[in-house]
C-alpha cells in the first residue's frame, strides 16, 4: 500500500490523493513531478491542492493568474527569465483557460513530454533549457473545455470530485477548531453552505468567531439559528443578491438575459455568473428564456421570499 502523502491535510478527495501520492513517490525517485491541470468548481480546493504539492516539492512556488499574462514577451520577460530559467521552481497558473493563445502555444513546446524530461527553447535570440527535474508546471481551471486542446493533452488532467455532506461537515468542524459541533448543529448549518469546501470552512470559521466573541465554549442549535440570522444568508448559502436574481426570474417568468440585466442592474456576464449555481441546483431552467422551476418556487416559499408570479 502506497503512502498517502496528503492524509494529514486533506478531507475527502481520496482518489485524487491516491493519484498524487503516486506521483510524489515517482518524484522522490526521479525528481520529476507530472505537469498537471486541476479542474473543479470554485471553492473545491484546486489552489489548495496545488499549494500542498508545492510544499512537498520543496522549491520556490510562484502563482500567476492566467488572464494577467497578455503575450509571450511578458511571459518571458517577467516570469521565465527572472523566476524560472536555471532555477528550481514550481509554477502554478490559475484560471489557465484565460491564458492568451500565443502563451498557450509557447507552453506546448516547453512542456512537451520526452525521454530526456527536458526541452531546449529559443526565444528572441536566447536559448534555454526547461528541465523537468527543476521545473514543475501546475495549473487550475473551472472551465477545462476552454483550455487550448493541445495544451490540455500535455498536462495530466485531474478532476476533483464533489464533496459528500459528511466531508463538508468535517471541513466545517475543522473551521470551527476546538468548538465541538453536534450532528444536529452540523446538519442545520450544512443547509446554509454552498456545497463546496471553502464555503464549509468559512461557515466553521463563523462559528469559531461567534463563540470567541461571546466567550462560549459550546455552540448549540439555538446559537446556530442565531448565527444564521446574523449572517443574513439564505438556504444553499445564497446571498441577498442571488435571491433577488431568483426573485426577478420568478417575476418575469420567461425572460431574456437582456431583460433580466435591465431589471437587476447587473451586466449580462454578472447575471450569467449569478445564475450558474441556480441552474445546477435546478432552481431555474434556461430554454431560450429563463424560467423558475417548481423547486425554485419552493425555495422562495421556504425562505419566505415573495415574487408576484409565485
Amino acid at each position, binding site marked *: 500500500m502506497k503512502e498517502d502523502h496528503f492524509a494529514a491535510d486533506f478531507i475527502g478527495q481520496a482518489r485524487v490523493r491516491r493519484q498524487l501520492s503516486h506521483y510524489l513517490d515517482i518524484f522522490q525517485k526521479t525528481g520529476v513531478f507530472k505537469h498537471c491541470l486541476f479542474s473543479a468548481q470554485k471553492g473545491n480546493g484546486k489552489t489548495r491542492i496545488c*499549494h500542498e504539492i*508545492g*510544499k512537498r516539492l*520543496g522549491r*520556490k*512556488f*510562484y*502563482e*500567476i*493568474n492566467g*488572464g*494577467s*499574462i*497578455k*503575450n509571450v*514577451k*511578458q*511571459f518571458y520577460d*517577467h*516570469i521565465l527569465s527572472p*523566476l524560472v530559467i536555471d532555477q528550481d521552481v514550481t509554477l502554478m497558473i490559475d484560471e489557465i483557460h484565460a491564458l492568451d493563445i500565443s502563451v498557450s502555444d509557447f507552453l506546448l513546446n516547453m512542456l512537451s513530454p520526452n525521454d530526456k524530461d527536458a526541452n531546449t527553447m529559443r526565444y528572441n535570440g536566447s536559448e534555454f533549457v526547461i528541465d523537468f527535474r527543476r521545473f514543475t508546471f501546475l495549473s487550475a481551471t473551472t472551465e477545462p473545455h476552454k483550455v487550448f486542446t493541445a495544451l490540455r493533452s500535455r498536462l495530466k488532467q485531474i478532476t476533483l470530485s464533489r464533496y459528500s455532506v459528511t466531508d463538508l461537515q468535517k471541513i466545517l468542524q475543522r473551521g470551527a477548531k476546538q468548538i465541538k459541533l453536534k450532528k444536529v448543529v452540523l446538519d442545520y448549518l450544512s443547509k446554509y453552505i454552498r456545497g463546496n469546501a471553502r464555503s464549509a470552512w468559512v461557515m466553521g470559521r463563523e462559528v469559531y468567531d461567534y463563540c470567541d466573541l461571546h466567550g462560549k465554549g459550546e455552540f448549540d442549535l439555538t446559537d446556530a439559528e442565531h448565527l444564521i440570522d446574523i449572517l443574513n444568508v439564505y438556504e444553499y448559502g445564497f446571498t441577498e443578491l442571488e435571491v433577488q436574481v431568483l426573485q426577478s426570474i420568478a417575476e418575469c417568468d420567461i425572460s431574456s438575459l437582456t431583460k433580466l440585466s435591465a431589471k437587476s*442592474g*447587473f*451586466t449580462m*456576464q*454578472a447575471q450569467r455568473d449569478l445564475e450558474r449555481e441556480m441552474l445546477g441546483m435546478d432552481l431555474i431552467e434556461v430554454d431560450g428564456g429563463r424560467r423558475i422551476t417548481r423547486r425554485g418556487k419552493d425555495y422562495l416559499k421556504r425562505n419566505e421570499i415573495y415574487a408576484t408570479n409565485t
Partner: protein
Amino acid sequence: MPRTPNSKNKPKLISVKLSKLNEIFNQDVTVLVDARYGPFLAAEETDLEKFKPETAEGEDREDEKPMVREVKFDN
C-alpha cells in the same frame, strides 16, 4: 459604461490596473470590487489615486507586469 463613476461621495471610486492589486492589498485599506463594473475598484483612501492606470483601456499594455505571487510555505 463610464470608466470612472462620477460620484463625489465616498467611497471614492478609482480604476486600477490588475498588476497593482498586490500593492493595494498590502496596505490597510478597504477595497470594494463592484461586480457590476468588473475591473473597477472602490476605496476610501484618497492616496490610492496614485494607483490610477497610466494607460487607458485598449492601449498597448505590453509593459504591464503579470500578477505573480510567491507562495511561502511553513515547513
